């Protein structure tokens, strides 16, 4: 799915959360969103996911204004993984993933074997099939996050939006989740804190104070100047011959 934003604006109490943001994510592309805390990454993702209507501008899904789409239509096309959504309910991992089928069901169109198959497939995609019957509160942080991603996959979306999905995870789970996301054949917009991990995206967008200050291929965007100006850090770019891309080495805060 081709996802575009046109001149998005969002102000609350005089504070600009989004300021004239325009971007287009091509079908199948992975766009990384980076930026310091409070720069508007989460707000932008929420607007792109259709959870919020922008006060200014519009979002187009495959050329169609999202304003004209119904909630369940949007949910059939776009899945959103929040930061750390939690529950006190006693439910099994499989039941949490089954929630992803909600937009396709109605009181008159009940659960079918096909839905079962899709849920099983989504669990398998995130390597959670062996833990499918475990209760939510017995799962670790990384397992919960993988269940959330499986729930999003069960929506069979054309676009997947993720808000810092690797937060609070150990390095092994961070890498496995990012590898999983990169392999997906859908449009992905992913907010990331780790700039090194963002290097693996097709393109990177940099948010600062609600504005999209730069967007493009990682090497062009994440320059030393950018790291200094937007992130306030002094860093070096070291060449890693094995990966074929530079690695960031952070020196100190400015």
């Amino acid at each position, binding site marked *: 799915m081709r996802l575009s934003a046109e001149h998005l604006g969002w102000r609350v109490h005089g504070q600009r959360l989004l300021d004239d943001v325009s971007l287009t994510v091509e079908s199948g592309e992975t766009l990384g969103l980076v930026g310091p805390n409070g720069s508007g990454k989460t707000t932008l993702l929420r607007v792109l996911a259709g959870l919020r209507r922008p006060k200014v501008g519009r979002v187009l899904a495959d050329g169609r204004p999202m304003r004209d789409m119904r909630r*369940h239509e949007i949910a059939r096309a776009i899945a959103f993984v929040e930061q750390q959504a939690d529950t006190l309910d*006693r*439910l099994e991992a499989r039941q949490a993933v089954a929630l992803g089928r909600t937009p396709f069901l109605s009181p008159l169109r009940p659960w079918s074997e096909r839905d079962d198959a899709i849920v099983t497939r989504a669990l398998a995609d995130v390597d959670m099939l062996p833990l499918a019957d475990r209760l939510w509160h017995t799962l670790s942080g990384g397992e919960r996050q993988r269940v959330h991603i499986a729930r999003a996959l069960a929506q069979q979306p054309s676009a997947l939006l993720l808000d810092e999905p690797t937060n609070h995870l150990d390095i092994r789970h961070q890498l496995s989740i990012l590898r999983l996301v990169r392999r997906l054949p859908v449009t992905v917009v992913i907010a990331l804190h780790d700039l090194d991990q963002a290097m693996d995206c097709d393109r990177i967008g940099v948010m600062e104070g609600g504005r999209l200050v730069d967007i493009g291929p990682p090497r062009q965007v994440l320059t030393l100047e950018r790291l200094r100006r937007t992130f306030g850090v002094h860093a070096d770019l070291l060449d890693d011959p094995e990966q074929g891309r530079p690695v960031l080495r952070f020196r100190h805060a400015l």
Partner: protein
Amino acid sequence: MTGALRSMTSATAAAAPTRSARSAPSAWHWCWLTPLLLLLAVMAGTAIGETSIPLDSILEVLANRLWGAEFPVDRIDAGIIWSYRLSRALLAACCGAGLALAGVVLQALLRNPLADPFLMGISAGASTGAVSVAILGLGAGTLTLSLGAFAGAGLAFGLVVLLAHAAGSGTGGGRATQAAGAIILAGIAGSQLFNAVTALIIAKSASAEQARGIMFWLMGNLSGVRWDDVALGLPAALAGLAICLWYRRALDAFTFGADSAASLGIPVRRVRGVLIAAMALVTAAMVSMVGAIGFVGLVIPHAMRFLVGSRHTRLVPASALAGAVFLIGADVLSRILVPGQVLPIGVVTALIGAPAFALILIRGARS
């Protein structure tokens, strides 16, 4: 008590094996088991009391009344069964089911385990309405206690909704999640306000006798229930059940919060508005007839989550059934626990409910 508890445990036994199975047979079990359990509870509620009535005379009276059969039955027995106990048991079932459903919905939507049907200021408003009629003489005799209570409940709910709306337009991430917090806080503020007004009216104007009567009413009271009440309570409970079942997937979608529900395609504001308003109406109808019976709406949903899981396809019917059976049992106990005196049913629900719930909590923690 034994009737209620036995019925509850057999409901458990029926529910437990079906928990992970998704096949049709388990659903069929429910279809015939639920009405059967309910029927047994109503029968027990009708049979047990200060004078025990054998089951066959109950069946004979029922046959006489419903199918025009002409069994010879003692006329006093027939009167007790038909005009007094049966209507009372049925209304207890309706109230139990309605309150439990309201609890299920509010706990699911607001993501707060302490949410109960009286959260939205309904019981506080109902009591203010009731004392306004009973003590201040509002309406000059044209208003009944029930009507006053219903009006008070509606007024309080409206006020809480306005307050929540005004407070809920905040900033920051997760506006839908914030709204849930605003509703809870507005409900607490509204309840406190109306409770204070009630206390003020009682303190200023009530005689000791009136104060005791109102106190009794506030704790819940099923005596004096007539078929007219059932005619209101039964449709209210059934409508509540139908709405909950219709929205069961939407309720499930709130598992990870309102924002997550929105991303699953649920029109959060509309669904939340419809469900909360419907449950407020059901609760107000029940409270206006029998007073504020606490505990059922808070604890039955939690107990049922432990027993049948948190998916609303199971939780909604299980809670409605358990609430109905529980309240019939509590009503029977309230009549026989102290000979010659009827206890407020709210006291009984809490007295049995609290230990029973503690047991479920402890067992749940072990599993």
